């Protein structure tokens, strides 16, 4: 069998390809620089991508004494880390998962012997849904964590990426060429959908919805009128995980985030407090706060019916801490 190829010369097209490549890189690089400057001029800031890699880094780098926030996109939108740290004087790390069911994370923490402090947002139809896509999200996130821990560079490359992303807006995944093109065509400044700031996971991706006025309901799946059968296995798994963490001396605080419209109806009809949240609190002994019943938080706008406006997050967080103080937590020294 004779060699079918021995030299790349066999397949070279004619033309000055060295100059072409250099010129191409220059054109690409200069255009990127111009767009970066343009983006900054219209108000975009450099910020890190809120993805599973960032989640894994945040988890791995967490201070031992930090509070961890766990839940869905709602806690990511509603919980302001700076306000919490300012009011309580304690560090906090945001570990909410957008569009994800956090059971696998909670179980993982328990299996790892976690005995720290958790603030857990419980949206029963996220926690106890039978939608495999939502359940899969946490599994994929944990998979990313394992991959990062196992990799030779041990997350070094992700740390470097985070540094670059925190400096260059063009590296943000939500900087969308289509949006920019539309803004140019309409001769209008693009809507700044700033969801993550700087180099820290502060607000998660869905908060951009909260900044969109008059957002229509995404689909009709909310229009549930019948109560779904309770998934006892998932409920037990959550209970066991919380009990395990608390038995080791850990602290777990539960709360329900504000909601409105159909999502609130679904919550009340299909996942009543008396069957889910209150039972969970009773079985585990973890204090539970339904923020919707609080007049201050209950008055906050919920533009997309599921997430409060990100600009209300400091107020929400301050009030949540006050509500926990009433239960004996975060008391001033």
């Amino acid at each position, binding site marked *: 069998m004779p060699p*079918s190829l021995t030299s790349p010369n066999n*397949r070279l097209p004619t*033309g000055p390809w060295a100059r*072409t490549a250099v010129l191409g*890189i220059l*054109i690409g690089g200069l255009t990127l620089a111009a767009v970066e400057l343009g983006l900054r001029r219209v108000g975009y800031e450099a910020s890190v991508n809120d993805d599973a890699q960032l989640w894994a880094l945040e988890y791995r780098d967490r201070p031992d004494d930090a509070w961890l926030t766990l839940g869905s996109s709602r806690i990511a939108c509603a919980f302001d880390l700076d306000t919490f740290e300012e009011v309580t004087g304690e560090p906090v790390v945001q570990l909410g998962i957008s569009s994800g069911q956090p059971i696998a994370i909670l179980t993982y923490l328990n299996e790892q012997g976690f005995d720290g402090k958790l603030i857990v947002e419980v949206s029963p139809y996220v926690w106890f849904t039978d939608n495999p896509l939502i359940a899969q999200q946490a599994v994929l996130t944990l998979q990313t964590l394992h991959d990062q821990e196992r990799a*030779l560079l041990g997350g070094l490359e992700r740390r470097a*990426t985070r540094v*670059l992303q925190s400096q260059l807006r063009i590296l943000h995944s939500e900087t969308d060429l289509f949006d920019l093109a539309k803004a140019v065509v309409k001769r209008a400044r693009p809507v700044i959908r700033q969801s993550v700031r700087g180099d820290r996971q502060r607000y998660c991706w869905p908060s951009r919805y909260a900044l969109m006025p008059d957002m229509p309901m995404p689909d009709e799946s909310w229009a549930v009128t019948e109560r779904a059968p309770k998934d006892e296995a998932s409920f037990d798994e959550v209970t066991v995980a919380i009990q395990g963490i608390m038995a080791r001396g850990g602290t777990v605080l539960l709360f329900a985030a504000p909601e409105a419209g159909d999502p609130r109806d679904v919550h009340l009809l299909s996942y009543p407090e008396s069957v889910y949240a209150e039972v969970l609190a009773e079985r585990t002994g973890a204090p539970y706060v339904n923020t919707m019943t609080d007049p201050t938080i209950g008055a906050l706008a919920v533009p997309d019916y599921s997430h409060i406006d990100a600009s209300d997050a400091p107020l929400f967080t301050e009030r949540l801490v006050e509500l926990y103080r009433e239960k004996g937590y975060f008391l001033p020294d």
Partner: protein
Amino acid sequence: MVFNSLTFIVFFVVIQGAYALLPTWKSRKILLLLASYFFYAAWNPPFVLLIILSTAIDFVLARKIAKSTVQRHRRLLLMGSLAVNLGLLSYFKYSPFALESLQQALAVVGIVWVPPEWGIILPVGISFYTFQTLSYTIDVYRGQLEPKESLLDFALFVTFFPQLVAGPIVRAVDFLPQLAVPRVVTSKQFGWGLSLATIGLFNKVVLGDGLMAPVVTATFDRWALISGGEAVLGTLAFTAQIFFDFSGYSTIAIGVAMTFGFALPDNFHFPYGARGFSDFWRRWHISLSSWLRDYLYISLGGNRRGDTRTNINLMTTMLLGGLWHGASFRFLVWGALHGAYLFIERTIDAKLGHLSWYHTTVGRLAGWSLTLGATMLAWVFFRAPSVQGAFGMLVSMVTWAPGSFDAVNSLTSVIVVLVFGLTVCWHYLFRDVRVETMAQAVPVPLRAVLLGAMLFICMMAPGNSTAFIYFQF
């Protein structure tokens, strides 16, 4: 480490710099070998040992095979190589599937058995480098190749980083001669290599990940909720995505290898322009299909033992080809479909091949459309989360189900149809043209602008870029 990452750019620049500075050919080869191990270890360090083991075993066994004059002894050594390589592949890739299948089979007869949790992690690219080392040993056994004296050269052949994890599957007969003499990289080679890498990156990041992947995920992962139209759209999107993703990887691999002075074989040649399935497999994943042809189909007897045996050989080859992609019934069905397509094509060719209309423009267009349609149907099984999901998608399409979930908006639908349509028309029109010929037809000033635009769009592409689909195989 994946090509579409900032880490790879840094890695590439550092290795290129060191490669240019090193004075001797041997030191450059050592650099490439160490870089290749590092490239692989960046994902999971312990699995480098697996590659080293596979390399050492085939290096030693091939030399023993060449030295031995006793046929029985030679065959035994070959069996040893096959057993080790395929054993490792089977353990990592197929044992969970085998246990699960056994569990299901036992459940049918009423025996409840829970298989042990082995927690096996599939080493990236194991199917690729296993086939590569196997081809070397088999070639030596067949007397078509002299065993390599240099372990360094052989190890670099097995691990050369541009193609280590997702091909093209390189034959020893093609690659080892390139290691015998120092590679001289001209500036033109370097420039064309970078241009190819940019084109491949654009295919992967922008067309595959940016435009097609979100639609594929939104439809295939929600197969029970979507409408018939969305099922069709998802299939169009995956047909385009799998091409852009995999051919993108191959193009980057070929381009990066070229910047170091190495030639890798072509892996794709406008596959969606194929007229017939034999033609398709001469254009799609060429390095795998030619490997299966040379080492499996021909070993089974090829077409030398009559029609029935030929068809059985074709089916066996395609079934195993399907299984090579992954341990799942979906891939078995995908392979079986392609086996059946090849059988049907042979039958039709035999019955209608002599008719004049068969070779007219209309006949050729009909052949192209049927090939494309059947290929897309098979892709449904390849991508769906399960065989049940694949049938669900197909039923949705056939019954034009209304759906209960808006998975794709109208602008995205237009983009998918447009990109898919342009891609398949492009493939058909340029099916006999080489990419190099097309590149040199572009006016010189426009080439740099196009490359610059591709690089810019790659950096600005919406959505999250992900690992290449074929990494999982």
